[in-house]
């Protein structure tokens, strides 16, 4: 056990897998000598060699295509896309190829790739360094989408993703790399130091894909969140003084439907939170699923707190970001109505 921040935990997971499995290799823009713009691959090239962790041309489609071809030969490539905003040039490769290969080839070929990418806002990155594209991946049959919220989970989920035989989109909430940001941007910045989930075991361990975590048990209302929003939701729950059960989904595909339904069946109320813009976001799917399966147990409408239906606006970061204030207000509304 050591205390690691999230980016170090990710670096640790990659190092463990490079040592553990000769079929693992890592590549992406600036990931080699430089160690990545967020330092997630720092030291890996020096330790494991030029062929295990290397730089690529700036061509996200090419990065994913290359990874697929390698995966087909039995390797387990872990490509990095520098920002999730730049994953779109590779969208066709991910959807039409990685996600469909096993199915269409009758099981002859598949692509066990893990695509890491920093995502989300809260860092004044403006339109194209802040977006949360998870919804468009969740809709793609054949892709898994994983989003950790702590160093412990980040390492365990990343190892599980790399060992998974399906293509996995691994979205890293970049605002959490250095600390468990709770959305109170005007307060002092927290680091991971002292946080229980920053205790990261050495070596190999996994956190299974498709299992949510109840990060705060409660009776009054269920809050569904992932990534940075887990911490923001916890702060909002404290601020609102509501006995909420906060569920960190951890992976949105596969989705831990059992944990979700059990919680909502218990509380009868639900608030869904995500950073991505609301319309057509993943919150819609969650809301629909719960409504379909817990209809008669719901006391009040399921609420969604999300980014507004605008591009990510630089100067208005804190107006756009679903902060603790907006979530607390939703919690109060849900508790008061009916």
């Amino acid at each position, binding site marked *: 056990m050591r205390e690691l921040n999230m980016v170090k935990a990710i670096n640790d997971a990659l190092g463990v897998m490079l040592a553990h499995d000769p079929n693992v290799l890592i590549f992406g823009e600036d990931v080699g000598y430089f160690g990545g713009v967020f330092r997630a691959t720092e030291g890996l090239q020096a330790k494991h060699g030029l062929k295990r962790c290397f730089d690529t041309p700036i061509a996200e489609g090419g990065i994913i295509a290359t990874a697929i071809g*390698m995966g087909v030969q039995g390797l387990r490539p872990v490509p990095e896309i520098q920002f999730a905003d730049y994953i779109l040039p590779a969208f*066709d490769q991910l959807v*039409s190829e990685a996600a469909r290969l096993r199915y*269409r080839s*009758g099981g002859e070929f598949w692509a066990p790739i893990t695509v890491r990418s920093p995502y989300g806002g809260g860092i004044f990155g403006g339109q194209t360094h802040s977006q949360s594209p998870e919804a468009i991946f969740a809709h793609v049959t054949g892709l898994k989408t994983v989003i950790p919220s702590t160093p412990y989970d980040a390492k365990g989920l990343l190892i599980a993703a790399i060992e998974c035989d399906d293509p996995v989109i691994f979205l890293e909430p970049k605002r959490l790399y250095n600390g468990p940001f709770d959305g109170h941007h005007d307060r002092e910045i927290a680091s991971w130091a002292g946080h229980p989930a920053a205790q990261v075991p050495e070596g190999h361990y996994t956190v299974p894909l498709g299992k949510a975590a109840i990060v705060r048990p409660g009776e009054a209302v269920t809050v569904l969140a992932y990534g940075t929003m887990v911490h923001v939701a916890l702060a909002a729950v404290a601020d609102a003084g509501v006995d909420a059960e906060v569920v960190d989904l951890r992976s949105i595909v596969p989705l831990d439907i059992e944990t979700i339904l059990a919680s909502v069946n218990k509380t009868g109320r639900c608030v869904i939170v995500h950073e991505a813009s609301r319309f057509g976001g993943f919150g819609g799917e969650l809301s629909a699923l719960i409504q379909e399966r817990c209809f008669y147990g719901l006391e009040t409408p399921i609420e969604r707190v999300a980014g507004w239906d605008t591009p990510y606006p630089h100067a208005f970061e804190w107006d756009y970001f679903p902060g603790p204030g907006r979530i607390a207000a939703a919690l109060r509304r849900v508790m008061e109505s009916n």
Partner: protein
Amino acid sequence: MSNRPPLEFHVPEPPARPGQLSEIAGTVVPEAGLVRRPDALSSSVDLRDLPFELIRVLDDDGQAIGPWDPRLSPERLRQGLKAMLLTRAFDDRLFRAHRQGKTSFYMKSTGEEAIGAAQSLALEPQDMCFPTYRVMSWLHARGYPLVDMVNQIFSNERDPLRGRQLPILFSARDYGFYSLSGNLGTRYGHAVGWAMASAYRQIDSIALAYSGEGTTAEGDFHEALTFAAVYRAPVILCVTNNQWAISSFAGLAGTENTTFAARAIGYGMPGLRVDGNDFLAVTAATQWAAERARGNMGPTLIEFYTYRVAGHSTSDDPTRYRPREEAEQWPLGDPVARLQQHLISIGEWDDERHSALLAEIDAQVRSAVREAEAVGTLGKSKPPLSEMFEGVFAEPDWRLIEQRSEIGAGNA
């Protein structure tokens, strides 16, 4: 500025449209045997002339000439001829099966059979091709079971792809044939990654990728070339320039003033331009590029100059957009007839053997179709419904399990 003519953009048009005189017969074709054959391990810097030549081995009389003659055994030549004839017979039979409503879709390779056949035989069993739908002769050259192919085309219960894929979008791993898909160009980069994986694993397998000339316009094509060049991947990157992309002629892919092979220059790799209707030239170029790849000299781009004789697919009628007679006037001739002529001219083939071979092939194709029909044609037979939910992931998640049981396709 004001005395200049106004700005204009240019929309390329093919040499002729239906009702116009086809100019294709007038295409100047360089003679066979003239292009130099540099050492396969030469620096790409010294090869920048090659993309503007046309490598040809078989001359008008069916003689193999010049430095690119691969000196194949008669046995190998006969193998090639058989693969090409089989491809053609199979295409004709299955195209008719579509007209008879036995399948939803079909595409022919007519006129381009030499490419897949020659390359399939020139490479090793452990090599992998990343095909287009128009190189089925690769599989025929390697003896892929015809009946499995027909089962796939009929999407019946024995379809090796379990009813999940459009007819002819095969996958045949054990025959070095990667999974096809409808999306053009997306697999070109997979070949590069696959080749890099061979190198990484230090096994002796190289990759060969195909793209139609129309498909070269996709960004995927460029990214694959870039990765191949940067990492010197052991891959052969082929462009089958059959002059047409559905109704669009090759000039629409950006080569009115250059060649597809010349793209190689900008990536620092060799580019060869090869008579794609010449079985020997295709073989020789492939051997050269394979030697280069296996010698860690990296990728080669090969443009095969050929002609798509049939329509694009069962969905189009080519006489709506090009002169009917264009195919016949194509100056590089028919690859099957040219190889047949060569074999005859070297005394290794005759009309009698040819007729016997045709009959044998015909019987093979008929019997495969008959066998597959007995299983069932499209809509008459299909794999078990549970197959719809298999293979989405390595293991189905709760959604698939629920939906499978909702539709009554079993719980387990």
